[in-house]
């Protein structure tokens, strides 16, 4: 028998008290594990996925809202900026990739965001050295084609060839008649791209209400030519008020019961187009740094460094919450450690005889001291094992609920490196809480203990 086997016997002898103390450690560890996993998820979510682009350009307003909206597909879009602005940016020699985004629409049930974009988006690394992979199909080529994120495909059971309509401006009562056909399903990226539906820019502008009314476009163009600032109008709710140049057939007869909508790609003039955001990849960080103020000086748009915005959010808000949660859970673990100390220390009064018997059988003072410390270590390690399993089980159970309620993707199998630090911390804590009871055992008077 080794010391741990002897210590384990003592723990089993006091099964109820031991279970409760180990449970208190387990709950502390479980909370810590959950905080670490959530912290890891949020940090990754807000740091990795932003790093693929140097600048996000969008309508003036909250820089954070622009980043949240265009990179994380959260929050509402600010407003739109003219498509011509995108065309100008694209021509700039400092720009490697300029990806336009049109946001605001959702899937029919409002669960996932629709992103109108161009095929080039799938050629750009979404985070450094990581390019999009397709689990099925291919990238967009045009028309009413769609590429969906892995989570979207899983949520709806969609496969290649599936067709779906989209809800205008997220208004579930206003579902467009046009349907988009899935031509590609992205492999999981662990980023917000997993829960986005990408449709081709041409298809997006072929939907009624997505292009700027002709009068507004003309007025804006005239103002631009007169040297005035362009008029920026919100996209949501705008309706076409003038004739459009239509290249293909018009939608079918709406009075017919459930006919398959005849949809075709419309050619929309540039001045009628708008974009919600433009993702810019520059030739260098320095160029991005120099370029942003120039955009910000003009009245049309703002250029935002996504990493800076997210770092600020993480530090100012998430960072503080994270620190607070980590401190709280740390305190819980310390309190659990104290409960182990109290439990073992209180039991020492009843165990003087047991200690004395061991000593009479030849156990040295150091041996009985070690047995008591081993008890504390075993209880803490047991608590750590149960707590880690419990924490991950709760994360596993909570992941789909959190996703459904907040769109935050939590990998139920995620394991944070910081969790590995919990074990040595627990071991040190257990040794500390075992010291005083161990010393009590160390000091037991054998002759007196045997007579008790």
């Amino acid at each position: 028998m080794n010391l741990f086997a002897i210590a384990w016997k003592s723990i089993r002898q006091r099964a109820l008290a031991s279970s409760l103390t180990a449970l208190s450690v387990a709950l502390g560890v479980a909370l810590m594990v959950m905080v670490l996993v959530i912290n890891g998820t949020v940090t990754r979510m807000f740091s990795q996925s932003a790093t693929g682009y140097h600048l996000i350009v969008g309508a003036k307003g909250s820089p954070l809202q622009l980043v949240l909206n265009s990179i994380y597909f959260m929050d509402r879009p600010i407003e739109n900026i003219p498509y011509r602005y995108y065309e100008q940016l694209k021509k700039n020699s400092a720009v490697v990739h300029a990806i336009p985004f049109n946001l605001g629409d959702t899937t029919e049930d409002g669960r996932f965001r629709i992103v109108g974009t161009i095929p080039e988006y799938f050629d750009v690394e979404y985070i450094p050295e990581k390019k999009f992979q397709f689990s099925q199909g291919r990238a967009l080529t045009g028309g009413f084609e769609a590429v969906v994120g892995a989570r979207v495909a899983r949520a709806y059971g969609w496969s290649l060839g599936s067709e779906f309509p989209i809800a205008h401006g997220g208004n579930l009562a206003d579902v467009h008649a046009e349907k988009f056909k899935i031509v590609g399903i992205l492999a999981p990226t662990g980023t917000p791209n997993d829960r986005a539906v990408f449709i081709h820019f041409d298809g997006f502008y072929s939907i009624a209400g997505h292009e700027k009314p002709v009068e507004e476009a003309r007025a804006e163009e005239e103002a631009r030519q007169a040297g005035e600032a362009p008029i920026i109008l919100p996209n949501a709710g705008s309706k076409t008020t003038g004739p459009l140049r239509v290249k293909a057939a018009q939608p079918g007869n709406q009075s017919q019961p459930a006919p398959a909508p005849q949809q075709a790609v419309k050619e929309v003039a540039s001045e009628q187009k708008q974009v919600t955001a433009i993702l810019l990849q520059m030739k260098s960080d320095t160029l991005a740094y120099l370029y942003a103020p120039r955009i910000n000086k003009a009245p049309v748009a703002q250029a935002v460094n996504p990493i800076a915005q997210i770092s600020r959010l993480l530090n100012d808000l998430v960072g503080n919450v994270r620190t607070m949660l980590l401190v709280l859970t740390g305190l819980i673990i310390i309190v659990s450690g104290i409960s182990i100390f109290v439990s073992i220390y209180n039991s020492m009064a009843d165990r003087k005889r047991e200690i004395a018997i061991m000593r009479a059988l030849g156990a040295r003072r150091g041996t009985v001291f070690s047995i008591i410390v081993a008890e504390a270590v075993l209880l803490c390690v047991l608590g750590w094992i149960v707590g880690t399993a419990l924490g991950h089980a709760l994360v596993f159970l909570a992941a789909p609920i959190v996703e459904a309620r907040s769109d935050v993707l939590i990998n139920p199998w995620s394991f944070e490196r910081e969790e590995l630090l919990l074990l040595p911390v627990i071991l040190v804590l257990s040794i500390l809480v075992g010291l005083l009871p161990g010393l009590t055992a160390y000091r037991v008077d054998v002759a007196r203990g045997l007579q008790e």
Partner: protein
Amino acid sequence: MSLILQDVKKSYREPGGTVLPILNIARFELADGEQMALLGPSGGGKTTLLNVISGITAPDSGSVTIDGVDIAKLHEVGRDRFRARKIGFVFQTFNLLPAFTALENVLVGMTFAGLGGDRGRAGHLLERVGLGHRLHHRPPQMSVGEQQRVAVARALANRPSLVLADEPTANVDASNQQNILDLIRESCREGGVSLLMVTHSLEAAGQFDRVNKLADFNHPRGQG
């Protein structure tokens, strides 16, 4: 000679500061393989004597030599190790560890002696004392007679040269007393182990070849 006590003195300081002498033994001997009963009244210093012989308590002065080693000169760790390897103890109240099975109670003594856990020998010893069918029972599940048998097996586990028995039959029912006594004596005889039993029972002491009264050689207040 297995055990020699020479000029051993031991006293305790009472809470009021008064010094209470317990042992004052000029000379005491026990030969190899010899079995001796030591008679004395309760509170007469019998248990203190066994504690001094086993090294649980250090004497104030004098020497306690077992197998040529004066354990009074050893530091505490040395005494603990010596006790674990050379001395077997059979207590009046058995002193088994309640959380451990009969087998584990025997094994734990081996562990503290640094001899590892020889499960085969532990099992054999328990079979020898008639508990082959109770190896995995814990003390609360056993009768007092069975518990004392486990204590006997444990005392012999490390092949000691001396077994100290402190009123080993005092808490055993009358029907089992003789069995326990026979078991201890036979086990020690078979192993060539010296046996020193302290008791206040004339009946138990009467079965030993050599019977001494503690008062005959212990003079705590210096008389005699």
